[in-house]
């Protein structure tokens, strides 16, 4: 069976998987921060390249590729809508008609701005794909339990049960096809919902007999930082630091209107290079190949 478009975590012997959920999440968040702060095409392309490289090195290249495929139509949609909505810009490409007093002229600048926004959407999705493929949700949720135990457990249950319920719904769909007169979608959906409630009751019973309502909670285990943790965290710090420093220094300036101006000098080149190098940090060193999933 083909995998879904959204990556799913599988334990793998890679440095990113071996690093703690907190460290790997930090790196993904730092990469996402770049996308939030910059719309410079070189910087965004560097984020995409950094995630693709890290994904390949972590053995999740196919998952990242699937997420990238999912991002393409979204990026194209944004690219095409922007010039229809914004008519600013000095370089007129197409003179459109007027609807309800609004002129639909298409300018080069609006098209380029749409392209940059689309690229930004695509780049934004990449660190989340890396996160979904490389961070153990159970470990992340365990660390969140200190904040809110019930919410974290509910999230863990949802992570576990959504695919189970999806399988239940598929099965019910197959059963409906086996009936001489298949029932309507609404009836099947209602029955699937009732089935989900039944399953929820079973899960609640399972939690009860495992002592859920005892009210006591374990203190969180304190793990010593491994080399993988240190390298992933260092990469996160470098990426986030470079992002903030670059922004303060005015790197990556893009002016879309009235004429498109994209700064392309040493600061942008340095930032892009730094991103690529930082994304490789978790994989540096001999011990990287020995990574195993954490307790």
């Amino acid at each position, binding site marked *: *069976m083909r995998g879904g478009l959204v990556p799913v975590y599988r334990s793998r012997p890679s440095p990113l998987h071996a690093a703690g959920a907190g460290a790997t999440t930090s790196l993904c968040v730092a990469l996402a921060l770049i996308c939030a702060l910059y719309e410079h095409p070189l910087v965004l392309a560097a984020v995409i390249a950094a995630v693709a490289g890290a994904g390949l090195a972590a053995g999740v290249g196919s998952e990242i590729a699937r997420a990238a495929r999912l991002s393409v139509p979204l990026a194209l949609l944004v690219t095409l809508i922007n010039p229809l909505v914004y008519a600013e810009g000095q370089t007129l490409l197409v003179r459109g008609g007027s609807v309800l007093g609004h002129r639909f002229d298409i300018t080069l600048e609006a098209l380029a701005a749409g392209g940059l926004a689309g690229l930004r959407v695509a780049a934004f999705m990449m660190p989340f794909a890396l996160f979904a493929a490389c961070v153990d949700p159970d470990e992340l949720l365990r660390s969140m339990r200190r904040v809110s135990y019930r919410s974290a457990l509910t999230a863990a249950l949802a992570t576990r049960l959504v695919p189970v319920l999806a399988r239940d719904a598929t099965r019910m769909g197959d*059963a409906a096809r*086996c009936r001489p007169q298949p029932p309507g979608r609404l009836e099947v959906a209602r029955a699937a919902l*009732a089935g989900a409630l039944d399953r929820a009751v*079973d899960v*609640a019973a399972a*939690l009860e007999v495992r002592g859920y309502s*005892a009210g006591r909670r374990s203190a969180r285990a304190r793990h010593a930082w491994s080399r993988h943790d240190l390298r992933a965290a260092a990469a996160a710090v470098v990426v986030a630091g470079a992002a903030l420093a670059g922004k303060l220094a005015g790197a990556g300036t893009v002016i879309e209107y009235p004429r498109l101006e994209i700064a392309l000098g040493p600061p942008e080149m340095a930032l892009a290079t730094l991103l690529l190098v930082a994304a490789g940090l978790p994989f540096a060193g001999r011990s990287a190949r020995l990574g195993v999933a954490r307790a």
Partner: protein
Amino acid sequence: MPEPVVSARGFTYRYAEAREPALRGVDLDLAAGSFTLLAGGSGSGKSTLLRALCGLVPHFHGGEAAGDLEVGGLSVRTHGPAQLAAVCGTVFQDPESQVVMGGVRSELALALEHRGEPAGAVARGVEEVALALGVAHLLDRRTDTLSGGELQRVAIAAALVGRPRLLLLDEPTSQLDPVAGDELIWLLRRLNEEWGTAVVLAEHRMERCLPAADRVVAIEGGAVACDAPPAEFLAWSARESTALATPVARMFSMAGLGPLPTTVKQARESLRGAGLAEPSEPAAASEPAGRSRLPWRRRPGGPLALEARDLWLEIEEGPRALAGVDLRFEAGERVALMGRNGAGKSSLLRVFKGLQEPTRGRVQRGGRVALLLQTPGDYLVHDHAREEAGDEALRAAGLAGRGDANPRDLSGGERQRLALEVVLGGGPCAAVLLDEPTRGMDRPHKDELSARIGRLAAGGAAVIVATHDTEFAATFADRLVLMGPGTVIADGPPAQVLAGGWHFSTDVARALGGAGGALTPEQGARLLQRELVA
């Protein structure tokens, strides 16, 4: 008797909104370190008793309880499931609903975390239970990637991680194939012997569990009907409740032999002791006792019901589910389709029905094909049974007068009968396909299903049943198709395929060494009586 881990005195329980009590005056003492098998038909009260022992009854399900029931010295009426979790672990039927975390390691840690154990103790507990139950290699796996057997082992490990004195299991093998089911029972026996954990196991397949048990408690109508060691239980069941007896015990009882054996090994020894030497004739060449000719050979070239020609099903990025299957089924045939998990049985049925398109090959259908998939509840989408099928179908399902009942309130057997009528509705069928219809089913319900299959075949349909249950296959089938991975590896009369089998065989055939092709207790008893007369 060692200190009891369970002590019940006149314990009675009625579910909220139920008219009759589910448990009536239960008196029971279970010794620490014992292995107890709970026997009883569907709806007898086995599951309710287990739910009472873990505190879900009455604290989770509500209702009214009376009398005393203590588990590990804690009264279940004053202590809830969370407190009782310290002394008893519980495993339910469906592993999908009791494994709650995404990763195996987190799953095993959960019970200890709920008890507030320090992080070091949690890590040690997880490591130890994983090694003890042979699931250490699964620790870093995601739970959604585990097979049913692996998932059930993880559920047992999660129940045992806190080292409870008592382990409760409610039909834990009903969703597993026979190999995984047998492995699970022997794992429980090892835990019971090595750790001294008392085990209470509710199961329908007595022949699978009886050899592991020290004691059997039979529940009928919510009350304890028999509480005895396995041999005495068999003697009781032969007199009072033959549906609970193992096939080999039934064969001995019908042949007038005694004492009734609890294991196949004992049966062989008894037969040797009675001068009935193990048969030496090759089983494959034999015919079933009491049958002169095989019905499937009586109809060569009968009307076509279903045919597969060079059928291939190759799953993208997956294994070959079917690899060049050639099969022809004729009207009136009763076919058991057997094989291990992943052999392609369900895939073949889905392709026959048209739920999946083959990647190569051709399916020819002699008319309408009805398919009942593994979970009959999936077919029932309305609020009333009458809306699922008409009054006539309800009568055929034995549900006359239950038309206003919500299908979700029906028992497992009733739901299955109703679902079968749902797929049969809409005119005559050339072929009726059933996928694992006997999961979690007791013997009387299997007998009912067998009779229904007989009626369908007599009406001209080819009935093809994918099953792991060799005893059931021997009861209804006149032809047995054994599948290997994606291919047909044997196709013939059940006596020929099963009597000489090792894994794919019945207990009666094992006890008799395949003699005379006898598979069922009735056939075995006739053979033994002939031998005794001779």
